[in-house]
């Protein structure tokens, strides 16, 4: 069965510092990977997907098949980036499996 692991429950950084949220996956096929974000009092929403290879709100994520990782990075964190971040992958039935989530806190 596929599995997504986010080793950090909480990540706290200062404004302007680089941030990296870790995600590792186990999947036998060719996975499609996503990062979802949930800001305070808002619904869960898609942040980015690896096939798009785009930068959203300054965030990027690179799929590393050798390390089975899909870490989310941003060079300079902003206070408005504070949120819960979930890494997710699909399975053969195109159903999303989510990791445990990482709470990012950006301090002023």
């Amino acid at each position, binding site marked *: 069965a596929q599995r997504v692991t986010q080793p950090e429950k909480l990540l706290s950084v200062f404004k302007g510092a680089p941030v990296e949220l870790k995600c590792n996956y186990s999947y036998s096929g060719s996975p499609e990977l996503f990062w979802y974000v949930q800001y305070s009092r808002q*619904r*869960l*929403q*898609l942040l980015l997907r690896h096939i798009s290879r785009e930068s959203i709100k300054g965030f990027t994520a690179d799929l590393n098949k050798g390390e089975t990782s899909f870490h989310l990075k941003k060079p300079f964190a902003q206070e408005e980036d504070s949120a819960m971040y979930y890494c997710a992958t699909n399975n053969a039935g195109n159903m999303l499996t989510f990791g445990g989530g990482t709470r990012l806190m950006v301090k002023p």
Partner: protein
Amino acid sequence: EADIYQTPRYLVIGTGKKITLECSQTMGHDKMYWYQQDPGMELHLIHYSYGVNSTEKGDLSSESTVSRIRTEHFPLTLESARPSHTSQYLCASSARGNTEAFFGQGTRLTVV
């Protein structure tokens, strides 16, 4: 406006009661899902549907049941609520062939 709606947002109910959590979407999506989320924890898929009259159980075993009589409606029912059912329930939908899921606001259920 195309959206996905969940009602109620909050529900406190006594043990043994029957409850139905409502989920409706006006996005024209074929696929719909229910996830269970405990605070700061993983989202676990408990039910999904590919379309009308299609329902499947997800990765996490759940005592709840679902139905999909209409494309836009995917209610979740608990016949006899227990304190162990206390959680947040998220409904989501996606278009056929597209894995990106759109989520509702969620229903926070407390069983006392």
